[in-house]
C-alpha cells in the first residue's frame, strides 16, 4: 500500500509541476496588480516553442529557454494593453488565451506526431534514497528540480528584497508607490513578463518532460486552473505548492484509477480535476473573506496618475 501511496505522491508532484510554474508566474503578475487570464495561451505557446526547439536542436534545455522566451514575448502583448493602454484586463487576457491557443495550434501542425528527445527523470544522488521523500521528490525531471528552486526564490524576492516590496506596493496602492518614485509601469511590465516566462516553462514541461509530444490544446485548461490556484494560494508562492500538488494528486489518482480499470467511466474521471478546482475556488474564496486576506487591492485596475 505504501508503494502505491509513494507512487501517487510522486505522480502528484510530476503532474502538478506544470501548474506550479504557471501559478507562480501569475502570482507575480497579480501581485503587481495585473490580472493576466492569458495563462492558458502562454502555456500552449511555450509548450510548442519548447517542443519545436527540442526537436530541432535535440536539447530540451534550449527548448526550455525558448519556451520561457516565447511565453515572455506573448505576455508583453497583454502588458502593453493592460499597462500602457489601460485596456480592460480581463478582455485582454481572454484575447491572449484565444490567440495563443490558435497560434500554437496553427504553427504546431507540422510537429504533431513527431518524436522529441525530451527530459528524462534524473535521480539525484544520495537524497533520492531517502524513504518516501526520495522517490517522491528526488527522482523527477530536471524541470521539476528547477521548480524546487523557483519557489523559494519567488518567496525570497517577494518578501525579502526591495523589488518584492515595490511589487507588492504597486499591487496594493499604486498611487502611493508612484508618489514614492517607484515606476509603476515598469514594475508591472516586469511582473507580467515574469508571469509569461514561467507560464512558458509550465507549458514546455508538458511537452518535453511530462510527455514528449505535441498535441493541440495539450494544456487542457491548466492555465485556468493556475489562475484559480493563485486565489487558493492567497498570492503566496509557498501555498502555491500546496495547491499545485493537490491538483497533481487529483490528476494522478484519476489516471491511476483509469489504469486500474475501474468501473467509473473515463470521462467522468477526467472531470475530476475541474470539479476539484471549482471546489478549491469556493473554499479559497470563503477563506480569504473570512480571514480578511485578499487579492492585491489594485488588482486588475488600470493605473493612471490623476490629480
Amino acid at each position, binding site marked *: 500500500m505504501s508503494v502505491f501511496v509513494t507512487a501517487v505522491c510522486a505522480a502528484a508532484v510530476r503532474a502538478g509541476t506544470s501548474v506550479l510554474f504557471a501559478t507562480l508566474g501569475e502570482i507575480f503578475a497579480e501581485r503587481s496588480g495585473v490580472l493576466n487570464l492569458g495563462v492558458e495561451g502562454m502555456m500552449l505557446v511555450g509548450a510548442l516553442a519548447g517542443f519545436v526547439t527540442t526537436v530541432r536542436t535535440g536539447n530540451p534545455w534550449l527548448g526550455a529557454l525558448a519556451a520561457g522566451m516565447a511565453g515572455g514575448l506573448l505576455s508583453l502583448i497583454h502588458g502593453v494593453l493592460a499597462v500602457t493602454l489601460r485596456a480592460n484586463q480581463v478582455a485582454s487576457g*481572454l484575447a491572449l488565451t484565444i490567440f495563443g491557443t490558435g497560434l500554437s495550434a496553427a504553427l504546431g501542425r507540422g510537429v504533431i506526431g513527431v518524436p522529441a528527445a525530451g527530459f528524462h527523470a534524473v535521480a539525484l544522488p544520495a537524497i533520492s534514497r531517502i524513504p518516501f521523500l526520495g522517490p517522491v521528490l528526488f527522482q523527477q525531471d530536471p524541470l521539476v528540480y528547477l521548480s524546487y528552486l523557483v519557489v523559494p526564490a519567488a518567496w525570497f524576492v517577494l518578501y525579502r528584497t526591495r523589488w518584492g516590496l515595490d511589487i507588492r506596493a504597486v499591487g496594493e496602492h499604486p498611487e502611493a508607490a508612484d508618489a514614492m518614485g517607484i515606476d509603476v509601469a515598469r514594475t508591472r511590465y516586469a511582473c507580467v513578463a515574469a508571469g509569461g516566462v514561467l507560464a512558458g516553462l509550465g507549458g514546455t514541461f508538458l511537452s518535453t518532460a511530462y510527455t514528449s509530444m505535441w498535441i493541440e490544446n495539450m494544456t487542457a485548461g491548466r492555465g485556468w486552473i493556475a489562475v484559480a490556484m493563485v486565489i487558493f494560494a492567497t498570492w503566496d508562492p509557498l501555498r502555491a505548492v500546496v495547491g499545485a500538488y493537490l491538483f497533481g494528486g487529483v490528476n494522478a489518482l484519476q489516471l491511476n484509477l483509469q489504469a486500474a480499470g475501474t468501473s467509473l467511466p473515463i470521462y467522468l474521471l477526467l472531470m475530476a480535476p475541474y470539479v476539484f478546482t471549482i471546489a478549491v475556488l469556493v473554499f479559497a474564496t470563503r477563506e480569504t473573506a473570512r480571514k480578511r486576506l485578499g487579492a492585491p487591492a489594485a488588482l486588475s485596475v488600470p493605473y493612471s496618475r490623476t490629480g
Partner: protein
Amino acid sequence: MIRARARTEPSPWAVVAVPVISTLGAFLAGAALLALAGVNPLVAYLDLVSDPFGSVFGWTETIVKAIPLILTGLAVLLPARMRLWNIGAEGQLQLGAIGASWVVLWTPLGHTPVAVPALLLAGMAAGALWCLIPAVLRAWLNVNETITTLLLNYIALLLVDYLIYGPWKDPASRGFPLSAPFPPAARLPALIPGTRVHLGLLLALAAVAATMFLLTRTRFGFEIRVLGDNPQAAQYAGINLGRNILLVMAVAGALAGLAGAGEASAIAGRLERGLSPGYGYTGIIVAWLARLNPLATAIVAVLLGALFLGGDGLQISLGLPIAVVSMLQGLIFFFVLGGERLAGYRLAAPTPRGAAAAKSR
C-alpha cells in the same frame, strides 16, 4: 468646479472607424504570422474573403454560422452589462445540445409535432441550469464567475463525450462517437429551401429584439444597467444584486443553450463532438465588438461567421487548421482593445472587482 472626465462615449466616427482600422491591423499582423507558418498570406486572405462572400451559397453558410454567434454573443453581452463575465457560453451551448438530444432521443416527444419547440425549450433550460451553477456560487459565495464558468466548459465537453461514447452511443454508428440521429420531426425546418439557413435565424433575431427590449423598457433591464454602471449606486438604490445575478445568468445560459439546441437539431442532426468550433468563446468577441449593444451583435456575428466559414475553406484549400481562425480572432480582439484606448475611449464593460465591491446583504 468642473471635473475632467475621460471620454466614455466615442464620437460616431470612432464607433465605426476604430473596429475597421483595428481589424485591418489585425489582418496585417495575421499575415506576418501566416508567413511564419509557411503560408502565402495573400492567397489565404483571398480565400478567406471569397468563400463566404463570393457566392450565394457562401452567404447562406455565413448566416448559418452567424446564428449561434448571435446567441452566444447575447449570452455574453447580457451578463456583461451587469459586470459579469460569462466565459461559459461554450459549455452552456453543449448543455443545450444535450438537453435537446435528451428530449428527442429519450422522451416520446421526439416524433411528435411538438418536437421542435420541446427540444428548444429543453436546450434553453439545460443551458440556463448550467449557467446557474456559477451564478449561485457568485451570488451566495462571491466566487469569481470568470473562472467557474470557464471550468464548466471543460466539464460540459467531457459530459458530451461521456454520453456519446457511453449511454447515448448510437449502436449503428460502428464505433464512432455519435448519438442516434434525430428523427425528421425533430429537425429544425429550413427557412430558405436548398440552404441550411434554419428557423434558428428567426429565433436569434427575436432574441436580439427581446434583449434590446429587456434592457431599455423593463424594470429588470433598468436594474441591470444600474448594476453595470455603478454597483454601489445600485445598492444605495435598494437593488438586489444576488437575485439579479441569478436571473441574468439564467437568461444568458438559456440563450447559449438555444444555440446548442439549434446546432444539434438543424445542423448536426444528432449529438456529436465538434458541434461548436468555439462559438462560445467567439461570443465574447462578438459582444465586445458590438460594444455590448444587442442590435450590433447581428452585424458582428455575420462578420465573424464569415471568418469561421473562410477558415473552414482554408482547411480544405491550404491545409491550415481551423485554429487559424482563433488566431485571427484573438488578433482582432487585441487590436480592437488597443484601438479603443488609442482613440481615447473605454468600453463600459465588466471589471471583475466592480460587482464584488458592493456589499451583499
